[in-house]
């Protein structure tokens, strides 16, 4: 884990490592982590900026209720980071501000 994370992991050597990419940067995680758990473990607390005031937000409930952990995952916007399992090569980015409409070339930006 990069230094600076306030989170630690119990030693669980049997779990398979996976690597996802957050804002283009590789993040090491373990099989069975949700995307939100993987990012928190790596010290990434801020997942998005609110559409209304641009305030920083991160996971609050970790059980699919609060929608604070919304991320863009593999090109799909507004996914709940706590409800998606981390997988090798997954591309994850923050959701900053309000969503635009999708253009013909791909997902909303």
């Amino acid at each position: 884990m990069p230094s600076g994370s306030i989170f630690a992991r119990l030693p669980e050597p049997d779990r398979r490592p996976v690597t996802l990419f957050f804002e283009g940067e590789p993040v090491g995680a373990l099989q069975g982590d949700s995307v939100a758990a993987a990012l928190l473990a790596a010290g990434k607390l801020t997942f998005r900026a609110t559409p209304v005031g641009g305030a920083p937000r991160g996971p609050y409930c970790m059980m699919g209720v609060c929608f604070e952990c919304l991320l863009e995952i593999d090109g799909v916007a507004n996914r709940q980071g706590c409800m998606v399992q981390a997988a090798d090569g997954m591309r994850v980015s923050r959701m900053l501000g309000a969503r635009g409409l999708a253009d013909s070339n791909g997902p909303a930006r």
Partner: protein
Amino acid sequence: MKRSAPLVIVGAGPAGLAAAKTALDHGLPAVLLDEQPAAGGQIYRGVGEAGEGRRKVLGADYAKGADLLRVLADKGLDYRPGAEVWEMTREREIFFTRQGAVERLAADQLILCTGAIERPMPFPGWTLPGVMTCGAAQILLKTAGVYPRQDIVLAGSGPLLLLLATQLLATGAKIAALVETTPSENYKAALPYLPAALQAPDYIFKGLGFIRDLKRAGVPWHKSARELEALGDNAVLGLRFRDAAGIREVACGALLLHQGVVPNVQISRSLRLEHLWDPLQRCWRPKLDDWGLSEIPGVAVAGDGGGIVGAKASEAQGGLAALGALRRLGELDTAARDAKARSLQKDFRREVAPRRFLDALYRPSGAFLRPSDETIACRCEEVTAGRIREFVALGCLGPNQAKAFGRSGMGPCQGRVCGLLVSEIMADARGVSPDEVGYYRIRPPIKPVTLGEMASMAED
């Protein structure tokens, strides 16, 4: 894939798993839908995968939850994890997304076991990154073996606050402070309920055990805290609060909140079931009979989703709801149902014996039910409690009108987090009961569904 089933159970926590077991024990096949990737609900989240290390940290009560998972091996059970229900009709048709495609099912009998969610704990700064619920921290530990290791403040009230603190200590984490908000008058208010609670003394002894362990570990413990404020701009850096000694500040990088749990009523509300206001638990619950049956024929609710009863009592309710469904399907006659129900009813009575004591002891302070004007109430749309009060001053009568006045409850969480808050704030401002101002009208889709997923329905 089959389009109809005699029994569909939604939610694979203690109530749902127990309901499935009772149905299968009587030869009735069941479909079990659960939105999480693994069964157990939140209380036993990840128990099927948790290794020795996690089980040791989380404790024996958690590890015992694995017994409930045995039903998953039964051939008569059609268990579908990762199923997010986004619409249910009063005719018992269920629409859900699973593995990127929409599936639908019509049920003769439906048992909703949607469990509990944490009561919101609003105060200035509660929206900062690094502030999360105690339940969230526990889910991190249960599903990923991840925990905050230092600079932790736990704030709030209730058994989970103390349980999580002991679990964090078992990981070796350093707790900077335990900031208890339980109002001092609650102790006196809870006392009359203590004799009933002692009918299930294990609950009380467990609580005393937590307190002993935390004191022994020397965790700094502040009581009757009020005027909470989370400090920081881009992430939480500390908690400011007032206790008997005056205003204090504790630095932290993880601020874990708890203020009890309330029923997750998103589906029962979307079905327009009648809901009753519980003035002691400060929440609504669907109106149900002794078998968990609602006013819609064939739709029952079991477990915390029908009113907070706890995990063990939820198991009993799940069994009772399944017996009710078996009776309605003609698989059992009334006498057989009643005979089989007796031991479950006895279990239920025992397990709920401490409930009123806990409800009274951990009743939230008014500051968290009706927060200060500058506090954000609706997190999604950033609507403050003060704005909600302005809506009332302008003539807004209830939460549904408040949507039109200022978008509260209209963000992505669809009012799940702020629903109770907005009702309480408006009721207080109008000087009436929350029951009179009512609750948000919940409309499908109650979970996000893409157009592509909906289009997939046409192909199957």
